[in-house]
């Protein structure tokens, strides 16, 4: 991803892997948890959205490297939001993070172009490993 090389442009090799992340989830506790995990690993959380609609709008204005997206949310769910984002930005990178992990939902996520599917509960390793897969 283009912005993933921001660190290289600034000459900081330790920033090479730094990602600008948008979190889309209707749970404040998940926002706090993901922010803690991502910032501790050197990534930057550039935006927080509480539903899919906000997520789509923030993607447009922030152009993050990676989006962490929940599925079940008010106004617009995560599947619809990914569909909207990918329609305009096919190169967008999305990690779906949800408590629902049955085959039907995974298939829906794959169909709209989700890059990595993670099931809650999660630990720091799971989150950081998923990000690393998108490098």
């Amino acid at each position: 991803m283009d912005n993933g090389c921001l660190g290289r442009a600034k000459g900081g090799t330790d920033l090479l892997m730094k990602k600008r992340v948008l979190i889309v989830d209707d749970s404040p506790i998940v926002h706090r948890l993901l922010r803690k995990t991502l910032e501790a690993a050197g990534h930057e959380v550039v935006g927080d959205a509480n539903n899919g609609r906000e997520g789509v709008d923030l993607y447009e204005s922030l152009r993050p490297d990676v989006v962490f997206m929940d599925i079940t949310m008010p106004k617009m769910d995560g599947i619809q939001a990914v569909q909207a984002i990918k329609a305009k930005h096919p190169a967008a990178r999305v990690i779906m993070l949800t408590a629902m992990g049955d085959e039907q939902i995974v298939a829906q996520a794959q169909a709209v172009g989700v890059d990595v599917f993670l099931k809650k509960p999660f630990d720091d390793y799971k989150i950081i490993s998923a990000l690393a897969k998108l490098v």
Partner: protein
Amino acid sequence: MNSENNLRTGDWALLCQALDEALRTMTGLELDWVTSPSAEVTRTTYAGMMVLAAERPSLLLIRASQSTARMIFSYMTGEEPDSLGDKELADGLCELVNMVAGDVKSKRTGTEAAFELTPPVSVQGDGLFFRGKTGTRVEQVAAADAELSLSMSLFVL
């Protein structure tokens, strides 16, 4: 399938395993659970609940005292316990119940015991009681000591 409802005998065990796994993965906590004969927990301050919608629905409920909720979500987020307000603690219980039910739903999808989930709802207040009407089957586990009060209940409606 149990002829009286859509909840398989093994579902309660799966829910208990899912709760254990969620707490262990996200907080590092290992709790000693006991099967509680009563569904009444007087120290409840926050509860997250959702309906497992099937032919015969069930209500899954996870509840915690304020100090327990603060401890759990402080471990989870790395933030000071006192920095977590009512909104975060109630939301955390909803998220926990969502993870637990979602895990079992994933395992049951495509089987005779498949069910759907409603969005979670939180309840907050001191001394909350939850009682099933006569005939309602209730399963419950609890972890409690002088400082800790956490329980999970399933009301088969």
